[in-house]
């Protein structure tokens, strides 16, 4: 009943619209540059893996992926482990300034990274973290910690209070309750929050580019510099792009039912 006439057609058109540009990128990544520039072909006539081999053998390319993964993983671990207790506190207790604090966290999730680019550059240069994965990981905490708190708060609120009370009556200490009972109960929530921290850190370019120069240069920066350096190696660029899509595409199946919830900060 909740469908509309012509829905098959509408949906098919929409899905084609979504997939076509991605297909084009994948298509180009398997072409040689000669084929890309000289002819317009809908699929690679001379398929080649050369673009991918270059990325996996050239250190300046594959180190970009490793650098990105480093700060993304550090950031995800920091965000989740800091956010978990806070999410529990916001969900269960009322305390001085709780609402203001919750709003303040949200306002940081919404703050434009462009505002922070310059002060972060100064701050992390001053404390000697510039051009390390730690600088980017800490900088991304700006929006990922609030995100994790908001998402996890939604999941913790879904756990009935009676469970806490029973556990405390049974003589569980708070840390033991937290690790043995609460964390397993909201395991899927932690998975979702971790996924979104990973994703938002992975897709961000501005701060990651500003806070690194040589040693910790992320893949997104490697890609943009190749474009501006007029190398115009389209096949290589396309292959690099395809490889950045893969982490998301791998886990998407497991979080498919939670995507709306994660983007809406656990409020849907």
């Amino acid at each position: 009943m909740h469908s509309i006439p012509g829905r098959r057609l509408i949906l098919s058109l929409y899905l084609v619209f979504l997939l076509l540009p991605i297909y084009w990128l994948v298509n180009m990544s398997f072409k040689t540059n000669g084929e890309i520039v000289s002819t317009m072909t809908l699929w690679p006539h001379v398929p080649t893996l050369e673009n991918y081999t270059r990325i996996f053998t050239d250190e300046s390319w594959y180190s970009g992926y490793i650098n990105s993964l480093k700060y993304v993983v550090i950031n995800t671990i920091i965000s989740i482990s800091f956010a978990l207790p806070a999410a529990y506190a916001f969900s269960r207790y009322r305390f001085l300034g709780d609402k203001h604090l919750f709003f303040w966290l949200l306002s940081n999730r919404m703050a434009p990274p462009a505002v922070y680019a310059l002060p972060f550059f100064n701050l992390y240069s001053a404390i000697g973290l510039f051009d390390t994965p730690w600088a980017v990981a800490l900088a991304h905490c700006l929006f990922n910690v609030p995100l994790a708190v908001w998402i996890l708060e939604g999941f913790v609120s879904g756990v009935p209070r009676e469970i806490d009370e029973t556990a405390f009556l049974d003589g569980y200490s708070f840390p033991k309750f937290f690790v043995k009972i609460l964390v397993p109960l909201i395991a899927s929530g932690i998975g979702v929050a971790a996924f979104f921290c990973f994703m938002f850190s992975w897709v961000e370019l501005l701060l990651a580019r500003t806070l690194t120069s040589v040693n910790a240069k992320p893949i997104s920066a490697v890609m943009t510099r190749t474009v501006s350096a007029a190398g115009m190696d389209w096949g290589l660029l396309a292959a690099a792009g395809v490889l950045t899509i893969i982490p998301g595409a791998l886990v998407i199946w497991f979080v498919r039912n939670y995507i709306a919830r994660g983007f809406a900060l656990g409020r849907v």
Partner: protein
Amino acid sequence: MDKTVNQKAWFLVLPVFLVVAFSAVLPLMTVVNYSIQDTFGNNQFFWNGAGWFKELLDPSSDLGQRFFASLWRNLAFSAIILAIEVPLGIIVALSMPRDGWRVAACLVIMALPLLIPWNVVGTIWQIFGRPDIGLLGYTLNHLGMDYNYVSNEFDAWATVIVMDVWHWTSLVALLCYAGLKSIPDAYYQAAQIDGASRWAVFTAIQLPKLNRVLLIGVLLRFMDSFMIYTEPFVVTGGGPGNSTTFVSIELVKIALGQFDLGKAAALSLVYNLIILIVCWVFYTVMTNAGVDRGHKEGAV
């Protein structure tokens, strides 16, 4: 939802408070500091009071002109993408298959653009739209349209807007789909008994139920499109001329390009203030939604 008062809960929140304060308050203080001072270099600063702010908000000055131009451009951009993405998202959500593996497949494909790094989204469209090597640009040019997003303002705008629609419509659709799924079947059965038309079902049952998710969707899309940076930067670099230079791009140009600290700081603060106001509306909506949810759970 009756929470107990417990001041010790602060200890649980403290780590988050510290890490966010370190990465948000400290830099923001630097910005405030820059915004009221001027410098001749060599780290020698002197007091400039509200000078930068006056210049920024004065449309006749060079800085003010750039700020307001990028602000209106950005607001126009946000308005256009909202006007396209919201109705399209609703239509797509209404077109979703009912159940089975097709739902899962649709969800996965729809979520795909949401998870692509923003600079790669830019790269995808940069390639896709090129008249020489991109499918879209090539096709349009062979259909007789003179499409070139590098030199033509209108084409640049169209490309950036279509890119954003491609990137984010799925978010609105997924939110609406979640909202639609929460409508009990009994509502539809009642409508059928009343002999309600398809349109009546939509306006009387579905739309009111979608109210809340739509509000969240609109606010999220507004916020994110208001601070868009990476995608247009990769595709058009803010050009041709300044035609796709949005507020964030302008700010980065002033701050990291020209290293004009005072101007950039004043712009940052005004920018942040606008975001903060919208964010407050967002917060009110979100927390009221939470209260609703609590009532519902309590009633069941």
